[in-house]
């Protein structure tokens, strides 16, 4: 069994145009952060949505995705246990911070009190204690970003994908937040695949870097 996230000969393209990826193979071991760097339009985000199973139906794709040796290619997104963070925090605006986090907590964690404690503990980890009943819109950008990370991790993913999650934050906040994300991923020994066009992100990740070229 291969531990980690395995991309096995993935080909990805739209209609009659040349494919964005041609038999792309990659292994992201546990607790490692692999960075994909490339210009916009080279298909980085499309690759991530192929991995989560939410790719636009206009795409044609082939290849297998395995997590810890188990093929998840045929599974619907909700059963793949792949977490993803986007450039925007995408906190559900009609739910409070606490409800957003509860929404991510798997159903096997039962009991109202128990679930509440888990959420409180997660918020405390991010220096956000007592934020349960706040609306997402009342939080600062950095706070919202941290809640989004907590939400993704509470769902207990086996893989974490990062779709340029630091691009919207200003410089000082960015480094701090990057460390926050990476620390949490390493503590859980998650394989992380990050796409970015900022070389500083790749440096901080301290892992393999794959540079993609624009489609020909």
């Amino acid at each position, binding site marked *: 069994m291969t531990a980690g996230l395995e991309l096995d000969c993935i080909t990805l393209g739209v209609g009659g145009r040349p494919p964005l990826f041609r038999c792309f193979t990659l292994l992201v071991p546990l607790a490692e952060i692999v960075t994909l760097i490339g210009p916009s339009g080279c298909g980085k985000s499309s690759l991530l949505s192929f991995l989560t199973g939410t790719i636009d139906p206009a795409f044609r794709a082939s290849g297998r995705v395995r997590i810890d040796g188990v093929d998840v290619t*045929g599974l*619907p997104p*909700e059963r793949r246990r792949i977490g993803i963070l986007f450039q*925007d925090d995408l906190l*559900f605006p*009609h739910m409070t911070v606490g409800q957003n986090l509860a929404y991510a907590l798997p159903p096997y964690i039962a009991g109202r009190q128990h679930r509440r404690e888990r959420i409180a503990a997660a918020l405390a980890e991010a220096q956000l204690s007592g934020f349960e009943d706040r*609306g997402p819109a*009342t939080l600062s950008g950095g706070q919202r970003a941290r809640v989004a990370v907590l939400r993704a991790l509470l769902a207990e993913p086996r893989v974490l994908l990062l779709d340029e999650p630091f691009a919207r934050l200003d410089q000082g906040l960015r480094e701090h937040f990057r460390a926050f994300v990476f620390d949490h991923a390493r503590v859980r020994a998650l394989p992380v695949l990050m796409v970015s066009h900022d070389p500083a992100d790749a440096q901080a990740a301290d892992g393999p870097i794959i540079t993609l070229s624009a489609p020909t």
Partner: protein
Amino acid sequence: MATALRPLSRARSADRSIGRRLTNLALLLFFVGPMLMGVVGTILPALGILPQLGGVRFSPEPFRQLLEVPGLARASGLSLGTGLATTALSFLIVVALAAHWHGTPWFSRIRRLVSPLLAVPHVAIAIGFAFLIAPSGWIYRLLAATGLAGPLPPDIPIVQDPHGIALILGLTLKEVPFLLLMMLVAMGQVPVRENLTVARILGHERSAAWLAVVLPQLYPQLRLPIYAVLAYSASVVDVALILGPTTPPTLAVLVWRGFQDPDLDHIFWASAGACLQLGLIALTILLWRCGEVAVASLGRRRILAGWPGRPPVLAAACAACGSGAVVVISLVGLAAMVLWSLAQRWTISSAFPEGLSLNIWRQQLTGEAGLIGTTALLAIASASAALLLVIAVLEQEVRQGAKAQRRHRWLIYVPLILPQIGFLFGIQVLLVVVGLDGTWVGLVWTHLLFVLPYVYLSLSEPWRALDPRYERTALCLGHSPVSVLLTIKAPLLARPILVALALGFAVSVGQYLPTLFAGGGRFQTVTTEAVTLSASGDRRVIGVYASLQMLLPALGFAAALALTGRGRRVARANS
């Protein structure tokens, strides 16, 4: 390479393809099927086949009988003329408004006034218009009260004039808001401001630039709505009964009289007439299409020859004022309607009634409370059913992409382009065959056909505009698509969903022919009552039912806005 790629859908799990099949099945069973059966069930009797009435052999007899109906040629001409004139007038007004006033405060003012008018049923607008322009209508009374008109109303047929002018104007009142709304939707998808800036930097005057640069980009999106307006105005029955000529009436009314005749043998020639109506709509659309091609080529030639840059500004301004007139006439007409229902005594030479009271309302409502209940229940049931089906269809579109979207758009427009009189009899036959005629189920099912397109048109834009990453995030957190729909998408789209529901409610309230055909005469709604009473001449009673027609949809929208008001306050407090 292409052979190595397989469609992603095969990699999808089985439960999703079950969802797709169920949606398609529901669409077929509740929407496409009845429409097809409706057309077939109208064509067969026209060819002599209707076993229930002893027609078992093909024969040309129904068409022969149809040709003998007095006034057929003139009726057909009236329908064709009404369709083309109403559509041309409405389109001209909307184009002039957009070209001349786009980007000014007047444009947004008219736009705000027009949306609520869209929810008022055709019949209410027509009755209000009649109350205004009739020889003894409000306009005459105002003139008489100020001494500008004599004490006796003129003895000329202003309403129900033999050339159908009142009908054309009355329909235009209702089609301008519809086309304007469709134009606004189309303008949302074209970078209008950027296009205009470029054209004006090149030296073209504003409205000329709009006509040359923006309109050609919008038109493809307006084509289906325009065809719907053509078909509707060339085949409408309820409004034509109120405003249209009587001897002969328009073709649709002529055919409707045939279907209604106590002598059931008339059904055969009426079916032939319904087929003629279908052909007439096809001809109307063909003529319009020829006009499109001619205007487009004329326009291109003008551009090559040097665009004049200055269209007749005065004419454009007048046409643009037409939209203001539409709004004012509609609103004043509706006011006249309400005023009459409250009037105690209103002599011919006074501008306003002498004293107002709720007597007529009390009198009518105590006797006919069930009628309002029937109307509301029917509207709630058909709008809810339509909403469920539309949400299922939109969810499939999200999964299947642009191709499914185009297919659905055409499908959704079919009941708007087919004339109601052309397939409702077939649906009645279908309901008789399956034993549902004159039942609630049959009635709701029939209303669904006409409610669904509007619910779809209203909800599809906001549905597509929702950031798809919310759904993806929720799925990646481990929630099933159904659960994501209920917990994330529905709350985020609560407002457009409720507005679509209210619009569906309003459309159902306004249905006349579907209620009569499918209800087997057993169901009365405020609309059937208003049309029936419109011939009575008792303006105070008519006023009550026409006002109810306006009030029920208004209550629907008020409820929708009140329900979403709380959510909006929360969102605002958040931001």
